[in-house]
Structures are given as structure tokens and as C-alpha cells.
């Protein structure tokens, strides 16, 4: 049994939240640079130039890339041989989240679902974090983190199709979702597609797909091919950066597929704006 102090987890979480808010990871930067090179529309090219300048200013001056510093989303794998000393894992992640958002001068974007009141006086600053937990072999804790903004989350969709819909149905569903979204999710976007499982499994898979490095290849060749097909279809829509018209709308499509019920084909689309603030650490 390996003992990990509660406070260590708090500190790690605080630090990755502050760092991620102002430092776009290399995969996201490279994807934006590539889009800048390839973009045919001068208006969208200008937007991409601004985004790269923005990333420079943000990292060199430690300013948040975007005022929407998101809800904090975590996928955590805890080894079965880990014992956390001094408190619960969930509490440590929430405490680290609050410290990160307060100490980093990040915006608290959590509110009550109907009164819309900001909850910082009742439960904490930008809390609760969204935490997906899994128990695995070993004596480490693996934390994947992303700050998820509202604009791109708002255009996300899930639907359970009959099996006959097949790949064509999936392609059409994703295309329709992105076409209707237009400029709203801050393109160029990364599109997470969760396929199979149950209704909620598809949704969680579509979220987790966004944590993959942009430009990395799907390990399943069939899914890798489907990702390319969907990306090409999306880029034919002509939406461009910030919807101003252009050839580069999707930086990447990431699919996570699961086995599913013989009666169902669940599909979920979760969209990530160009400011793909994601990172991972192992403790």
C-alpha cells in the first residue's frame, strides 16, 4: 500500500488548474498553427492569427486564455494500492479546484441551475468539480484535467439511434450538430464522439474523447478512418474560424466507441472550442 497525503493531491490539482488556464498545450497550439497554414479564407486566417497571439500573451503574462475558465472536469484513475492519508480523494480534488480558481484569479462560472445564483458563498468557488472516477491496478493516481467552457458545451447533443442507422447515421448526426452550431462553439473545434454503451456511457465517452491529444491517431483503424471521414464532412460545411467562413472548422474528430445493447446505437457529440485547455499528471 502506498500512502499519498491528501494535501499533495490538493496542491497538484491547484497547480494544474492555474497553469492550464494560461498555457495552451502543445498539441492544441500545433493544431492551430496547422489550421493557420491551411486556411483559405483571409478573414478566418486573421482570426487564427489572433488566437495564436492570444496564446502567446496568455502564457508570457500568465493571463487566462479565455474569460470562460470553465467548469473543472476530471477523469481520475486511482490505483487499488493507494491509500490517501488525511481525507477523501473527491474532497482533495474539490479543494484543489477551489484553490486553483481563487489563487489563479480565474472566473467562478458555477451557479444554481434555476436561481442562477453564484454558489461561491454556499458550496465554494467554482465548485463542485465534475469528477469521473475509476479504480485500476497499481499504486499511482492518474489525473486527466480539462477546463470546459460553456459555449461549446451548449451545442453538444446525445441521441440513441436504432442499430440500422449505422455509420451513416453517426456521420449525419455529427454533421448536423456542427452545422447547426455554426459559429457558437468558437471554431476551430475538436469534436468528441461517444458511440455505443448506454445513453450516459456514450455521453461520458464523448467527453473523454476530448482529453486525447489533438492530432493523435485512434488505436482502432476502423475508428481512425471514421474520424477522418467525419472531419472531412465537417470541413466541407465552410464554417471557418469563429464562423466567419473558411476551410478549417474541425481541428480533429475523436471517437470513443463501446459495445452496446443489441437494440441500440447511442451516439453523443461533445464539442471543444479552440481553447483546448487539457492536461494530465501522475502522482
Amino acid at each position, binding site marked *: 500500500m502506498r500512502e499519498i497525503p491528501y494535501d499533495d493531491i490538493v496542491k497538484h490539482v491547484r497547480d494544474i488548474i492555474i497553469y492550464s488556464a*494560461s498555457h495552451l498545450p502543445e498539441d492544441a497550439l500545433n493544431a492551430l498553427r496547422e489550421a493557420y497554414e491551411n486556411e*483559405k*479564407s483571409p*478573414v*478566418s486566417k486573421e*482570426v487564427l492569427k*489572433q*488566437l495564436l*497571439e*492570444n496564446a502567446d*500573451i*496568455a502564457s508570457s*503574462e500568465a*493571463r*487566462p*486564455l*479565455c*474569460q*470562460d*475558465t470553465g467548469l473543472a472536469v476530471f477523469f481520475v484513475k486511482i490505483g487499488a494500492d493507494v491509500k490517501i492519508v488525511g481525507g477523501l480523494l473527491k474532497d482533495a480534488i474539490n479543494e484543489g479546484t477551489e484553490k486553483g480558481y481563487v489563487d489563479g*484569479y*480565474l*472566473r*467562478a*462560472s458555477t451557479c444554481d441551475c434555476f436561481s*442562477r445564483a*453564484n454558489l*461561491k458563498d454556499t458550496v465554494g468557488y467554482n465548485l463542485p468539480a465534475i469528477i469521473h472516477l475509476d479504480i485500476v491496478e497499481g499504486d499511482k493516481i492518474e489525473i486527466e484535467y480539462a477546463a470546459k*467552457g*460553456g*459555449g461549446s458545451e*451548449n451545442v453538444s447533443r446525445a441521441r440513441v439511434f436504432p442499430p440500422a442507422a449505422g455509420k451513416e447515421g453517426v456521420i449525419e448526426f455529427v454533421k448536423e450538430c456542427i452545422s447547426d452550431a*455554426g*459559429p*457558437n462553439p*468558437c471554431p476551430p473545434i475538436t469534436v468528441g464522439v461517444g458511440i455505443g454503451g448506454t445513453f450516459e456511457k456514450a455521453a461520458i465517452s464523448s467527453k473523454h474523447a476530448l482529453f486525447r491529444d489533438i492530432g493523435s491517431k485512434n488505436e482502432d483503424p476502423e475508428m481512425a478512418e471514421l474520424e477522418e471521414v467525419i472531419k472531412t464532412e465537417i470541413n*466541407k*460545411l*465552410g*464554417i*471557418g474560424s*469563429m*464562423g*466567419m*467562413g*473558411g*476551410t478549417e472548422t474541425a481541428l480533429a474528430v475523436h471517437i470513443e466507441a463501446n459495445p452496446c445493447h443489441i437494440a441500440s446505437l447511442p451516439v453523443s457529440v461533445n464539442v471543444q*472550442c*479552440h*481553447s483546448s485547455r487539457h492536461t494530465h499528471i501522475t502522482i
Partner: protein
Amino acid sequence: MSEVYHLTTPLTEDVTRKLKAGDIVYLSGTIYTARDAAHKRLVDLIEAGEELPFDLEGSVIYFVGPTPPKPGDPIGSAGPTTSYRMDSYSPTLLKHGSKGMIGKGKRNQAVKDACKEYGGIYFGATGGAGALLGKQIKSAEVIAYPELGPEAVRKLEVVDFPVTVINDTYGNDLYQMGREQYEVK
């Protein structure tokens, strides 16, 4: 071809009626921030015939909820939020003298119609460029609804704040025009 303008607020109708979708504008002067909750309150005040926290005539309203400023800075990161959530309120504000809105994303037909009728412009700023845009804001002061936190109404002084005309006073929409040009059927 799109033109480049340097404009100072408040905007007048003879200026807004010159602008066309796709034009690039560098705005300077005073602008006001308001998001969902503040818009509802402003419209409620208008309907009740009460005084607003700022003069609407010629005003430009920026849809933004900035991050908290670091010590010594006037404001934190301050890029636009998605505008459609303000669609039900914007026509009333345009009718009562406001001449410009800054946000990102599509507006509905009622907003586009109100732009035509009252000489208003919907400007797009680059979403997610909050660090870059925040630097063009030289001062910020909360003038109403401090309890709304990031959604409070702020008076901002901006210099050469870069925006693009999305919806002009002629019913044009840059999002439609741009997309039609690059769509592969």
C-alpha cells in the same frame, strides 16, 4: 471588399449606416458590459419606465463576463460570450437608443430586424482571445449590480478594440455570407 474603420463611441446612426458586414472596426471610448442577468434587469427597468444605470443613446454593449483582475490590472481576460442568449432583450435596447452590441455567435431574425430598423450593429469579437482583448481595455468600473459578480454591469474604456461587423443595418449576415463562400456541396 471589407473596409477598416476607427470609431469612437457613442455611435451615431449616420456612422452605423455606413458599416457593412465584414468590415473591420477598431473601437475606442466607453462601452458597457452586460450578460444574461443584467440584460433582464435593464429591460425590466425600461418596461417599468425607470432610469437605467447608463445612457443608452449611441451606446455599445459588450457581452462579457471577465475574469477577476490581478492586482494592478483594470480587468482580467475579457473575450465575448455567446450572444444568442441576449436575443430576447437586444431589440428593446436598440429601440431605446443603443447602437451596437459586441459578442460572438448567431443572432435571431428579431435582432437582425431591429438592427435594420434602429440603425444598430452587431459586432463579433474573437471568442477565446480573452487575454488579447483584455489588454485593449484601459479601465473598468462596476456601475450596477455588483452582486452579479462576473455578470455585473461595467463601464469600460477601450482603445482600438478589434471587432468585425457581423450584422449590419441592411440585413446582411457575415456568418451566412462567409459560410456560403466556402461551403462544399
